[in-house]
């Protein structure tokens, strides 16, 4: 049992223990779950060193049998691709626990228990190497989010929760079929093994098989990303979820989709991915511009940020499907950036909501005067989100655009329009919320940040700056892994050439 296994067990055990805690002592529940999540975070930091010193390889690998027949294995491991996503998840969990400290007042125990269950599920997805195990964790991560939205959400929460659940389920059903097909074909659920068999020519998918399998996985992931036009569950889920739910949804859950694209679709179905890249990039770019345009006219802050996510995630998909080192690195980096900056935006919007009990932009104005620090944090986060240099998003967007320009210059041109539009809707929101005069009918005074809120925001801001000026702390591990994936994608094509001879 290595560090990674322990890290997986902690939230699961924390979840079970939380359920055993007395119901009438919310303070104990909060402190306990915060403690558990902090332990998970600290432990996860221990993963960095070994992974970075072993670039391009699986580290912390455990591979034991789970179910004998059909052969399903508990096969987990960590590499440069999953490392930062794991840490992003453990980093954000204590933060969202702190964010919910005051806001969640009913059914406190269940709420925090679900947050830990969610952490368990997403960590599992990021480290699973057995496709069936991957699928199990994928489904596990779905359930707590369903309840987080459905129980603690706003008015239309049931509709949003059901929509979210069913939409994702539709995708996972297809994925399950594809997984079973692959099992029948190869006799294993183990992904590294499958890749190995493919390299050695013992497992070959013909064009049609490759296409449909790719499509099944792609569809499941595209819903999660969400890629235009499969995105409409997102504004509803975000708009209705409590702050913690929105943050985890945007920062971590959406990344399950993009992670799946990079982890599964590219290496396993490289040929099909290549053949379908053009229309996928088309959808990604459409999403970038479309998401931004729709965000511009949203009167509701959370929905605005949700549509901005559609736009930002379009960048990630664009980067992935350029199949260039720069583009892929940028895409992975952008996943992390989006996790930090959009997470922070949702937290800040949540803070405004706790103060004035409205998500409508029109109900605000002049907040900058009464809460200067809150406004400062919001402006910094906004600037990060619109891709200002020296802050995190810039690096990711820049690399993605560079990758896109390498493939087709027009891709970069259209994506760059999205960058322009992002500053339009974000600054407009900032102006209407923080500048100007406070509407006279407003009764609730907007207080500035409390100590707890400082503790929530400062780590996020620090990360925005660090990831903006010191991308070299993070990128090499990612690059090494991406290089491997691109290498894997090349192989089948090379083989075909060899066969043709």
């Amino acid at each position, binding site marked *: 049992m290595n560090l990674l296994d322990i890290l997986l067990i902690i939230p699961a055990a924390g979840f079970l223990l939380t359920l055993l805690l007395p119901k009438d002592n919310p303070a104990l529940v909060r402190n306990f779950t915060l403690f558990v999540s902090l332990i998970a975070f600290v432990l996860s930091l221990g993963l960095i060193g070994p992974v970075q010193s072993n670039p391009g390889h699986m580290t912390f690998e455990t591979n034991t049998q789970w179910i004998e027949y059909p052969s399903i294995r508990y096969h987990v491991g960590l590499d440069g691709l999953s490392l930062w996503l794991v840490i992003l998840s453990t980093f954000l969990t204590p933060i969202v626990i702190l964010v919910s400290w005051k806001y969640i007042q009913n059914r406190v125990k269940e709420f925090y228990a679900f947050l830990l269950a969610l952490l368990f599920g997403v960590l599992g997805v990021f480290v699973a190497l057995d496709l069936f195990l991957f699928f199990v964790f994928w489904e596990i991560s779905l359930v707590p989010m369903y309840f987080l939205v459905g129980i603690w959400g706003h008015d239309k929460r049931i509709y949003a929760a059901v929509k979210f659940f069913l939409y994702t389920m539709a995708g996972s059903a297809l994925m399950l079929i594809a997984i079973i097909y692959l099992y029948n074909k190869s006799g294993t659920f183990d992904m590294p093994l499958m890749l190995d068999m493919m390299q050695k020519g013992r497992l070959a998918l013909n064009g049609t098989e490759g296409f449909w399998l790719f499509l099944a996985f792609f569809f499941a992931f595209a819903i999660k990303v969400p890629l235009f*036009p499969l995105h409409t569950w997102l504004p509803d889920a975000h708009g209705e979820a409590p702050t913690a739910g929105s943050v985890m949804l945007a920062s971590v859950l959406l990344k399950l989709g993009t992670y799946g694209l990079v982890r599964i679709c590219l290496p396993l179905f490289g040929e099909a991915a290549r053949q379908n890249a053009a229309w996928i990039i088309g959808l990604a770019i459409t999403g970038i511009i*479309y998401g931004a345009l729709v965000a511009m*006219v949203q009167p509701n802050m959370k929905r605005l940020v949700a549509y901005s996510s559609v736009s930002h995630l379009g960048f990630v998909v664009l980067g992935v499907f350029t199949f260039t080192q720069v583009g892929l*690195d940028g895409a992975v980096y952008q996943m992390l950036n989006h996790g930090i900056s959009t997470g922070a935006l949702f937290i800040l919007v949540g803070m405004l909501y706790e103060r004035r009990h409205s998500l409508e932009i029109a109900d605000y104005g002049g907040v900058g*005067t009464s809460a200067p620090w809150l406004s400062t944090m919001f402006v910094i986060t906004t600037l990060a989100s619109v891709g200002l240099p020296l802050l995190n998003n810039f690096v990711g967007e820049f690399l993605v655009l560079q990758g896109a320009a390498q493939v087709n210059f027009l891709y970069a041109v259209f994506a760059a329009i999205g960058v322009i539009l992002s500053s339009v809707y974000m600054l407009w929101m900032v102006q209407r919320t923080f500048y100007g005069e406070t509407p006279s009918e407003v009764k609730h005074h907007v207080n500035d940040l409390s100590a707890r809120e400082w503790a929530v925001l400062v780590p996020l801001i620090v990360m925005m700056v660090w990831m903006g*000026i010191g991308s070299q702390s993070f990128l090499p591990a990612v690059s090494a892994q991406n290089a491997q994936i691109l290498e894997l994608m090349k192989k089948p094509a090379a083989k075909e050439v060899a066969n043709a001879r």
Partner: protein
Amino acid sequence: MNFLDLIWLIPIIPLIGAAAMLLFGRKLSKSAISIICPGAVGASFALSIGAVMQLASLPEKAHQVILYPWLPLLKADMGYLLDPLSSVMILVVTGIGFLIHVYATGYMAHEHGPRHGGFYRFFGYLNLFVFFMLTLVLANNYALLFVGWEGVGLCSYLLIGFYFHKKSAGDAGKKAFIVNRIGDAGFILGMFFLFQLTGSLKFTEVNEVLRSARFGPEAGVFGLLSLTALLLFIGATGKSAQIPLYTWLPDAMEGPTPVSALIHAATMVTAGVYMCARSNALFSLTPETSHIVAAVGAATAIFAASIGLVQNDIKRVLAYSTVSQLGFMFVAVGVGAYWVAVFHLYTHAFFKALLFLGSGSVIHAMSGEQDMRKMGGLKDKIPVTFRTMFIGSLAIAGIPGLAGFFSKDEILWQAYSNPVLGSKILWAVGLCTAAMTAFYMWRLMFMTFYGEGRMDEHTKHHIHESPKSMTVPLMVLAGGSVCAGWIGMPKVFGENGFMQALEHWLAPVFESGKEVAHAAAGHAAEAAHHDTTTEWVLMGLSIGAALAGILLARHVYLRLKESERPSGGVLYPVLYNKWYVDELYDFLFVNGLSLGGGGLMAKFDREVVDGGVNGTAWMTRLISRISMWYDTWIVDGAVNLGAFSVRAMSYPVRFFQTGFIQSYALVFLAGVLAIFGYYWWVH
């Protein structure tokens, strides 16, 4: 001390100042802030002087310092390059920036109260701006230049919107940021092309590749190179307020006046000119794009000047004047006279900063009034401001001996003597613009300082000369506006190391660019006959234009009564409303493309895309209803029917199933007999 290895400190010191202000400024006294922030810029200025002096003694005239790799995939480091071009820029930025900081301590002294967090926030932003501007000019690669490029845009946004409780200020800030971002998108794309073509973003490496034989006339990449240069130029039109992206600059006057001087006159807006000069190797290779640059520059120069003729807000006149002067600089870039562009940039920094700060002093004296129709007769009441602005106006009008004369005239001469087709038109447009410049500047002077005072009694009572902290910078800048041009005199005045000092200093940066130009175009600007007679005549013409402008302004605004002034007919409202370009842009892009498109898309999203999802759900429910019905009536019905029919069929059978063995035996027997009987009958 080796200043050359410390050049990275030049931007960092103001950054520390900014961080100190924004984190702890609230707790600092005004006098402490007034020492720290100008002090930080002053320290950078001192370091810059030290570094430039050491640079002068280097044989290769260039020095790089690389801190650490930033984006290794794009070969972009946190690296700094000091060469003649960046040395001029850092001296302008830190030197004039320092004076403006000092001035601001006086100008902003009334800014107080926790409500706007005024003083410390203002100086924090100002220092942050200097940091980004120095990063921009000291960067050794395009990516880091872009950091500064976006950063100055950000500071501009923050400072224009400094009085953020005013809606107009917030709007103007946002407009500046977004319009700049449009340009920035062009710049980013240009940068990608450049990387694609040359495999690097480092200035030295990019230039080396571009100057190598690979990019000779027969290399076949000209279309691509022209496009690259054009994209970079689009970036420059955003930052340097050229057609079509100039509209943000006049609105930027919502910011406090020192900001207008620092950002929107002396430094930030010249970033585009600097960037084009920095990319001279690229622009020299692409004559088509250079023509576009020159044409856009000339068009902007005369267009902005025409608007400036009729504006009544003192700062707006200066804003349009800035746009117009930047147009001059792009004419110089476009005709390949890069050093002249930098020359005009440098002289312009002095007199335009002076004019803006002077106008700030006027506004200060007028208790915040900016409308020149309500001024007049201020000559004797604020004499220092008047005298310094008088010098500045002479300098910008192009009166011989002052800074503006030399640089503007050199641009006109370079335009005229350029062998390219249309160069005479460029020159003619420039000459007209020069006359218009003299007119609107002196209109400003006459309306503000001469004649009768038109302000109300209350304001009149308050008029006072500004404090020393404001007037001393004015005087220093006035000195600069007189002398700054002397290091770039035309060769017809005589040739020696001092009179052409700037050209010689900058030569290493542009020389190789020139060589490329020779190779590419086959002939060079230099090759044009240096016809001294023509040069003298042209000089006389431009002096005449300047004097004519001044005298006409004097006639109209000093001699004629208000009722006697020519109305300008239909032209007046067109000019006064800035050719209605803002309205057009609002209609097309703001309300049309963005809000209209966004609204349409949102409707589409709600009704079509999400409608599809909800429709699917509805369909699913419908199908499930039908299934339910089917299940109840057909499937289950079938089952029930089966049961029913079995029951029904069993009915007669049941009749037989009595359970009596005897009856079964009887039936069995009867059956056997019947079968046997049947066989018997058949056979």
